[in-house]
């Protein structure tokens, strides 16, 4: 139980990642692949944000003029901001990739009239 509570976040990110990978490899439909890709990316974000979490800490905005102005900032009070910064980037990258992938999928559909990988390959011949 202790173990479960200590690490479950990491386990769940692994689960999400497996779902994503499975969809990317096994699914035939391009849209499904894209969804899998997004899930995969989100899983990584879960992982990073979990790294940043800290027991008993609040959000990484310094309580400026919130009663404790200009006192020495206690490190233990704030969660680790660095992973958050990194993940902002990852989210943005994710949406970028999503946009491009959708655009390509749409072009493929226009060209081959299908989103199913095997049908497209058939029609390419």
């Amino acid at each position, binding site marked *: 139980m202790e173990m479960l509570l200590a690490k479950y976040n990491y386990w769940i990110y692994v689960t999400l990642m497996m779902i994503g990978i499975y969809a990317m490899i096994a699914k035939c439909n391009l849209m499904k692949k894209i969804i899998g890709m997004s899930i*995969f990316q989100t899983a990584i974000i879960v*992982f990073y944000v979990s*790294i940043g979490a800290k027991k008993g800490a609040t959000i990484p905005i310094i309580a400026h003029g919130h009663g404790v102005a200009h006192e020495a900032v206690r490190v233990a009070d704030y969660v680790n901001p660095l*992973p958050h910064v990194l993940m902002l980037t990852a989210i943005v*990258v994710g949406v970028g*990739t999503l946009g*491009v992938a959708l655009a390509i999928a749409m072009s*493929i559909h226009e060209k081959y009239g299908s989103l199913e990988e095997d049908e497209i390959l058939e029609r390419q011949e």
Partner: protein
Amino acid sequence: MISPEQYPVLIVVTPLLSAFLINILGNMDKRFCYPATLLALAGSLAAAVGTLCRVANEGVIHYRVGGWPPPFGIEYVVDHLNALVLVVVAGVALVAAVASKRSVEEEFPHKITQFYTLFVLLTTGLLGMTITGDAFNLYVLMEIAALTNYALIAMGGNRALMASFNYVVVGTIGACFYLLGVGHLYIMTGSLNMADIMTILPSLYGTNAILVAAILMLLGAWIKMAFFPLHGWLPNAYTYAPSATSSLVAPLMTKVSVYIMIRVMFSVLGATYVFTVLPVKELIVWLATAAIVGGSLFALSQKDFKRMLTFLIVAEVGYMVGGAWLATERGITGAILHIVNDAVMTLCLFLFSAIVVYKTKGHQLSNLEGMFKKMPLTMTAFAVGALSMIGVPPTAGFFSKWYLILGGIDAGQWQFVVALLFSSLVNAVLFFRIFEIAYYEPHSDHHGHSAPVAIDEAPMSMLLPLAVVAVAIIMLGLYSGEIVTTFIQHAVPAGI
């Protein structure tokens, strides 16, 4: 004015700023794009060369972006390894850009602005990947390069679309694996700076998490570089890409990924960890052997010229990965030298294929018929590239192969040596088959004069870069010694 101290950042910032300017200018008049692109890349190349000279004189350069000290801010580290790669990337991009003019105008006249903006941004991404000393920054730049790459490939239309889509999926997996690896390192060490991680890491060598991190990062790099069992996306993507794209992407993308692998191996995980703690050295050399043999054999079975070249890339990746994992000084030297040489060689071949596509509208082997007659200069330049791929001295390809084979002998990995020789032979067969096709025009009669064929060389904007590259191949070959003693020998980690 801007002091030489600032050169490292200029390498990346010049093309970055120019990309947006190109986009804005291009919206006004698309004729601005081409010269602006050349100017930007030339600026970047100049900065890269300046940095290279500084590195040669002063040793490793550190540059703090934003003025923050390294583990907190992002740092640029230019050492002997990446100074070299930077110049290669900038140079290759410039040459490819020069040559792209006609094929871009022909293949997508309506999207010139987008093309050049993406082109410059791709170069920016590759340069940034090479120069950065921060593990996460590398990921961001990797994504810039990847996204531009997807788009540039997909602009080829038709079959390029599906190829590009597969590339998106696989490329994302690769980049995400890398990111996950960085995450694992971060959770264990708390740092993102490569040098910093490397100093913290030795106390954690035994842990599973670091092992997983290493595997993930390497897997990521391998996917990006199309290392043997993970190479499925590459042939289609590069074959069906527009020719202006492929002559930029094919020489650089895999090479920069190899560079990243080497960087991860030696500057993040540390050579000791990679070669002594990880039990995979032999396995990877075997895989590299398989890559070389497989790539060569697949290349042999192709009827499509460009596709054949893509399989050669797969084989060449095997060279470099194998060389780096031989764990001998000469093997690693060879791998690094081959990054440089192979970039230029591949550029030569793909520039040629761009010319072929431009002139004959196809890239089957049969499109090459009678080329020697029609464009002797072009074919001569191509022949230099081909000989370099085969590994005929004094072309560049010979010398890197030389080091690789010596490394293989030193390491006692004979299968790798045999594979290298085998691939040289296969390359010889491949290219002489092409020469044959290009040489025996179908209508030649036995004796006397055949019908005079009008010499129809490629336009100057394509021929000149090709010629420059051909000369560069020979020069690189002749100066290999200089390169090795001035740069690469400092780049090989000590104690191997």
